[in-house]
């Protein structure tokens, strides 16, 4: 469930986008700044490639700008991340073979973080990024949506067309996996 403050933010998002549609470019600039990092990180962590994430990031905002009334049946934030997720799924389908190979490679690295690397000051944040990449797609998606979009479990469930308990389970499994992989960093 979202708090009152979060609800207020969502209302402000919608008001900002409507103001933009009414001719205020500054309103869009404010809205863009608000989701600039979180949307980009969602794409980056999902894809693992900075350039691909930037491409999809641009496509995502282009789609938002093409629409006249994007969030008639929901919140702007949910709408934005739904577009991002759909773009990510499409993109991953197109490069499926390449992605599988890359995931295998990353998994080989991430599942066995060597104690030497940790002791040698290997960046735990980098290990975290790699561990997220090796998560199963649904678990990774759920974890990233929870962390980056700020949506509630119910909203994520709606966005992913799943039940709330399913989302909860995916989130729990994702955390267990990350904890296992990053045990030495915790």
């Amino acid at each position, binding site marked *: 469930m979202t708090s009152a403050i979060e609800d207020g933010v969502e209302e402000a998002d919608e008001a900002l986008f409507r103001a*933009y549609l009414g001719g205020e*470019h500054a309103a869009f600039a404010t809205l863009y700044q608000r989701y600039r990092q979180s949307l*980009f990180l969602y794409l980056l962590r999902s894809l693992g490639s900075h350039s691909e994430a930037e491409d999809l*990031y641009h496509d995502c*905002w282009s789609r938002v700008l093409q629409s006249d009334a994007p969030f008639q049946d929901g919140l702007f934030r949910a709408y934005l991340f739904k577009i991002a997720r759909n773009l990510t799924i499409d993109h991953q389908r197109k490069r499926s073979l390449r992605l599988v190979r890359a995931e295998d490679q990353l998994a080989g690295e991430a599942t066995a973080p060597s104690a030497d690397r940790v002791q040698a000051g290997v960046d735990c944040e980098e290990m975290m990024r790699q561990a997220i990449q090796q998560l199963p797609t649904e678990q990774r998606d759920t974890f990233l949506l929870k*962390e980056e979009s700020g949506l509630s479990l119910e909203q994520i469930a709606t966005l992913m067309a799943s039940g709330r308990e399913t989302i909860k389970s995916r989130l729990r499994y994702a*955390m267990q996996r990350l*904890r296992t992989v990053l045990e030495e960093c915790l």
Partner: protein
Amino acid sequence: MTDDEQLSQQQLLQLYRQGRKEYPSPEVDSAILELARKRLQQRTPASPRRTPRWTPSIAAAAVLVIGISFTLKLQQQSGEPESLGEEVKSFSSSSPQEDGVSAPAKAKKAERGAAVPEPQQQLLAPESDHLPAPAASMAQPRMQSAPMAEMELRDQGEGFTLPAVREQKQRPIPRLKAESWLAEIEALYSAGAVVEAQQQLARFLLQYPDYPLPEAIQPLRMEGGAVDGRP
């Protein structure tokens, strides 16, 4: 979930959030903001409309005004009694006699007017045949509302005459209603015009033989003797 698990989960999330350092490049930012600006310009019409938006409403208002004035002109030319009655009603509502009436009283009067049916309709109804003789005799002159209003207007002054009223003046003037007539006789009598008052009273009694006379003009009847042909 145990406390250890919760702690490690919090540490895990903290580690993840510490790594949130990447941003899209400024080139992408500027490209998206520029795209937003272009889309905004595309939404806004490039050239302003040549015809102002208020033109249709002005045209409609002009048609309405011309139509109403034409209808009023036609009504004036035809000189319908109904329209005369309406004009006199509206005139009498703004007469100097009622100017002294307070606004709430006017509102009450309007309410009564809305609630109670028109006197003409009441009198024209078949029930008027069952009225007692004095009531029926009182009702008779009230049926002619437009000429009565004209007489009232004449009493108020000749300064303002409606076109329809002017037309009505050329028609034969009907009798005053009984009360007004008696008031006029009383005024004549009190002014000293006894003979004229007697003549008027004689005519009145011919018209309304059973109408009860006020005490003020009873002596006039006595002085006139058998003016009504009765002792």
